[in-house]
């Protein structure tokens, strides 16, 4: 673990009109760590990760990547900086194929004049999508199937795979085990561990506390838009974590 945090938030606040979603949020995240982010519904978890991923800009405070303050103008900037995000409210385009979704925003062009005119190399994208997904621990049947034909769990797997395969520094997973059965949830935990072992920083949001306790190195608890606890996972049990989340533990 290096001394500079790969991702740092300093005094970040964010409101939607009159609704205050985040208040003075600060934390540091290091490479090779899985950090759990927990809190009740509406605690501000999704708002926080959307601020990190450039969907929203913070009203106050700043985001630092590898020690450098960054000001995202759009999600594009965060992606460029090596931060990949799986959104809770599906980040896939259902009418596109699996391969097209995996390469959305990073399309491969043909290696000829047509490519320079913007024409795509669909076949390469499809084969590479399969190969790269296998590498991060996800196998898909055929990349040319349309996402709308997949089950909820299969879609989730594609979205997780996309985030895992492109992430260079940070991978944010907002309730990745949604729609997944017990066995598939375990697979997702494996995908996360593999990402950590590759040296990535993983931000894991979940309401399934046993999963969070099993896989994370550190847990951040959000309540009503504020961080109320930030401690190594070993300091928590399911009961104490639940108490901190609900605010009964104080």
């Amino acid at each position, binding site marked *: 673990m290096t001394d500079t945090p790969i991702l740092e938030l300093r005094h970040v606040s964010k409101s939607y009109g009159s609704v205050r979603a985040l208040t003075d949020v600060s934390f540091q995240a290091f490479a090779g760590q899985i950090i759990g982010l927990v809190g009740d519904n509406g605690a501000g978890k999704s708002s926080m990760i959307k601020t990190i*991923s450039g*969907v929203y800009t913070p009203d106050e405070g700043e985001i630092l990547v590898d020690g450098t303050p960054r000001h995202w103008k*759009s*999600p*594009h900037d965060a*992606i*460029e900086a090596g931060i990949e*995000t799986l*959104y809770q*409210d*599906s*980040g*896939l*385009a*259902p*009418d*596109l194929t699996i391969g*097209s*979704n995996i390469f*959305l*925003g*990073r*399309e491969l*062009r043909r290696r000829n004049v047509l490519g320079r*005119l*913007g*024409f*795509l190399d*669909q076949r390469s994208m499809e084969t590479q999508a399969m190969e790269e997904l*296998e590498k991060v*621990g*996800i*196998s*898909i*049947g*055929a990349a040319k*199937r349309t996402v709308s*034909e*997949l089950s909820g*769990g*299969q879609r989730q*797997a*594609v979205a*997780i*795979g996309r985030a895992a395969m492109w992430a260079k520094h940070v991978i944010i997973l907002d309730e990745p085990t949604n729609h997944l059965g017990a066995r*598939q949830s375990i*697979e*997702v935990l*494996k*995908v996360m*561990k*593999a990402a*950590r*072992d590759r040296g990535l920083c993983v931000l894991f949001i979940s309401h399934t506390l046993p999963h969070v306790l099993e896989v994370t190195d550190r847990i951040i608890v959000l309540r009503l838009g504020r961080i109320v606890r930030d401690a190594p996972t070993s300091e928590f049990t399911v009961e104490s974590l639940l108490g901190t989340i609900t605010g009964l533990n104080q």
Partner: protein
Amino acid sequence: MSSSEDLSASPPNLVTPVTEVPRWRALLTNQLTVLVFILIALMLFLGNHNSRFFTSSEMSFLLADFSGLVLVAVAETFVIISGGIDLSVGSVMAVAGVLAARAMQPLINSHTNEAVVLLLGTGVALLVGMVAGAINATLIVGFNVVPFVATLAMWYGGQGLALVWTGGQPYGLNPGAQTWSAATIPGLPFLSWLSLIVIGITVVLGLVLRKARYGRYTFAIGSNNFAARAAGIGVKKYVGSFYVLSGALAGLTGMFFDIRLGSGAPTTGQTTTLIAIAAVVIGGTSLFGGSGTFLGTVLGAAILIVVQDGAIFVNVSANWVPVVVASVVAVASIIQSGRLRLRRRS
């Protein structure tokens, strides 16, 4: 615990593979195949009824009418797939046609080089169309006006401007325009140069929609606007460009009618918006965005033109033609909505 060992111990299995539908079945149930059959059946029916239908003069007439529709229909396909709609195309055609004619008229009578006159007219029409499209885009992307309202306003305002700028009278362009529109490809008497150019542009647009990044983003934005943005796509820039593209093609179509009719008339394109959207819907593009095909739109446009022009061959009187066309649109939409519902349920 070491996760890389866990991974090799049990092979990754997050998505179970599914067997694919055989190719021939996919082809038979494909809606494009259905549209091709309908088009062929319609033409055979009309030809059977009246031998004059398959003459090269009638075919060239059909092709010319098709050319006056297909560009705006294809542009509308981009817009609708992206999740929007452009109701203004008909009026933009009229305004662009009128202003292009106004620019060309003095030159025609002073016997300026034909190529110069044509280039000038095309340039003016294109520019006017793009300006109209850019105004739509600004309202929609810049001020968050819903596309329906923004382009409806442009449609209505455009009608007014076309009348204001002509005083209600068309700008005559003959004799120049007559010779240009009559010129055909040697050996293919039913294909005018004009139609060939239109078809060429259409094919390029079709390839872009299916094979290029621009087309991919059109689908992505209509399919899930948030996902497109989250993937780093400049959604606003692209959405704006769809309306500019639509305006540009409406402008070119305005120029097409200038040549075809030999005048720039304020009444051009009065029904075009409706017919173009109908062609897109018949072609199977979802008005909810995200799905649709270029070939579907082309076939939809062809079917509508054949019905519209063919009606007289089976002795439908001119006043009834819109009713016949409307019925075809209604029936086709019912079929398509049934198909879309089936698809969504599965």
